[in-house]
């Protein structure tokens, strides 16, 4: 039997399922690292969140009468992994279940399911947990077994002597969320995604670059940890290049810049739009970290920028072929 359909009759290998699978593969090194730093908890919590997210996704698709396809399943898994990556390894198991249900249910399906969500679902889940269970969400485990503060929290209160070395910040054997601490392994995962052309450089480079510039201009931290009024430029103050690596390597900004702000659905579509989006994320992260009352700014920065995407998309249409440079006359040879 011959089949007939509209051209083209061939297609590129990439499909949504394969792309999501690549994202999961890229996140595995950071998950393995968390095992060495925090023990089995991170892996267990991630598994539990995956089951909860999958169950929620399938239940909601069934209820809405939609088909369960690869793209939906893999994207639910990506959401679950990313959400678990940005909670403390000390949270109880039921909390990631709540987070996963909120991420898939409210973050994604309330807007119409895959492709229609305005916000990054993983960050919706995380933001909910943060506001509902503040204390467990900000109680940290250090790799040596005792609990303590994250590097950004040390920065916030000016306890620079307690900052780990840049090497430890990059390696990730420091306090923090399950999957955010190892900058090196996250960057390796991002490199894999770049090579596989799942993501482009635009969002991560714009994001991290804008944060670096912001931190350089406005200083590495505030003293006292409160709002604008007590902001004092201190030892890591303005025009201090030393604050830049600390801010880039500590906290969740690499995870956010490479894996969350690059989410197709909730980020702009054109390269120009992606750069604007990334710069906005970087500036907002800097504002929250330096002027806000809260040491980490990545997730709220991305959520806030998610809201601007329709506007950015509208402002950054592709340039129509032949629209501006009409007929560059080539005279007689």
């Amino acid at each position, binding site marked *: 039997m011959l089949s007939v359909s509209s051209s083209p009759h061939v297609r590129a290998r990439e499909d949504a399922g394969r792309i999501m699978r690549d994202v999961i593969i890229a996140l595995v090194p950071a998950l393995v690292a968390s095992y060495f730093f925090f023990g089995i908890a991170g892996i267990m919590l991630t598994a539990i969140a995956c089951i909860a997210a999958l169950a929620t996704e399938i239940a909601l698709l069934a209820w809405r009468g939609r088909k369960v396809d690869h793209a939906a399943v893999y994207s639910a898994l990506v959401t679950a992994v990313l959400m678990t990556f940005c909670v403390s390894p000390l949270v109880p198991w039921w909390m990631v279940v709540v987070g996963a249900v909120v991420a898939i249910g409210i973050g994604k399906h309330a807007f119409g399911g895959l492709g229609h969500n305005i916000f990054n679902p993983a960050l919706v889940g995380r933001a909910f947990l943060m506001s509902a269970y503040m204390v467990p969400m900000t109680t940290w485990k250090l790799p040596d077994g005792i609990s303590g503060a994250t590097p950004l929290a040390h920065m916030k209160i000016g306890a620079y002597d307690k900052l780990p070395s840049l090497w430890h910040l990059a390696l990730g054997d420091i306090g923090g969320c399950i999957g955010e601490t190892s900058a090196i392994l996250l960057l390796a995962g991002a490199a894999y995604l770049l090579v596989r052309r799942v993501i482009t450089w635009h969002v991560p480079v714009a994001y991290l670059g804008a944060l670096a510039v912001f931190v350089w201009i406005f200083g590495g931290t505030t003293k006292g940890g409160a709002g604008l009024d007590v902001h004092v430029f201190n030892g890591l103050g303005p025009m201090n290049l030393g604050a830049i690596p600390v801010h880039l390597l500590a906290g969740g900004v690499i995870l956010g810049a490479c894996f969350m702000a690059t989410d*197709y659905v909730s980020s702009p579509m054109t390269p120009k739009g992606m750069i604007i989006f990334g710069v906005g994320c970087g500036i907002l992260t800097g504002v929250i970290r330096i002027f806000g009352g809260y040491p980490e700014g990545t997730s709220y920065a991305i959520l806030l920028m998610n809201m601007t995407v329709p506007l950015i998309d509208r402002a950054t249409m592709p340039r129509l*072929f*032949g629209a501006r440079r009409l*007929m*560059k006359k080539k005279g007689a040879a």
Partner: protein
Amino acid sequence: MITFRGGVHPPAHKGLTDELALDDAAPPAVVRVPLQQHIGAPAKPVVEKGAAVKLGQTIAEPGGFVSVPHHAPVSGTVKAIKEYPHASGRALLAIEIENDGQDTPADELEPMPDWRAVPVEALRDRVRAAGIVGLGGAAFPTHVKLSPPKDKPIHTVIINGAECEPYLTCDYRLMIETPDAVLVGADIVRRCVGAERVIVGIEDNKPRAVEMMERNARDLDKVEIAAVHTKYPQGSELQLIRAVAGAELPKSKLPMEAGVVVQNVGTALAIYEAVVGGKPLVDRAVTVTGPGVVSPRNLRVRLGTLCNELIEQAGGMTPDVGRVIMGGPMMGLAMPGADVPCMKSTSGLLLLLRHDLVSYELNPCIRCGKCETHCPAGLATARIGLAVELGNIERAEALAVLECIECGCCSYVCPARRPMTQLMRVGKSKVLKERARRKIGA
């Protein structure tokens, strides 16, 4: 290297046929010449059932200015003028001729070996009388392109040897086997439009064609061979002009607005044969290829030969063929069957296997933006697709859906497997219908 924005890099698959010389396909016992073979009005038959015809005799005359005559591809007897399956999937009128095997020539067209002394008007008339249309696939009547209005001076003739569709190699073979004839054809075009120079654009993955054409162009004045970037759709007229002449024309503008005329390699050869040899367009080069063909070939085919017969001459189909395509995989036409005649626009027959077939579904857009960054026309394809899906034709029109060149890049890259190109086509036709309705209403 200068090129255009966007585009894709599908696997080329040229290795199946690129080393195979063009062979003459066996003339069929019966040919069926469709009256509709090109853009514009269909031709009108001038022979009747039972008439004896000679090879090259005019059997149908142009149906308007944008139309050309058709000629008998064999000598023999007209058996019928009736509806016959057509590549478009419809049944359309065709002239059926029984081949007497003699190839008795009609000699309607006098050879013009000293064409440089022939008035330009006569050259144009000859191109039309020989029934020549663009052989790259679009089949636009060539004489129209050779008649630019006086206020549009033409400075450059671009010969399109890009052949960017995967699998197809017939233009490549023409450039290797008859480069001199192609260049003379280009020179005839240059004279017709009064241009100063000729540029032949060839994708840089065909170094042998570049070399052969360069060697033959060495002694010619003002002929350049330009190796262009290998990227689909480099052979699309607008994209090729962008690459070799630096002019970026919107789809609504004709190339002559930029002082350029583009002709395909095969068309240039047909022009040479018609002018210098007095031969009307009765055959063309066709690549019969794909994983579904037993021994792929490049064939010189009498127009009106059934595709089935060509596939037989290429060893037949493998049992797991799932789709027969006239043309290449990116823009070719999938046919319900292979019992349709070859036409002037038939550049290839591509047989794909059942398990290689791709399906497209109206999945949700995941907003990856790949279709927009790969669109050579610079369209906001993702947004147009959504607008068409939601029935918002005004928005599709505002987003310039009519500028779509239907190259297929958007469908090719879409990870959600959305039928992007189809959405563009639907959008275009709805916009045009809406415009027509408005006109009538006003």
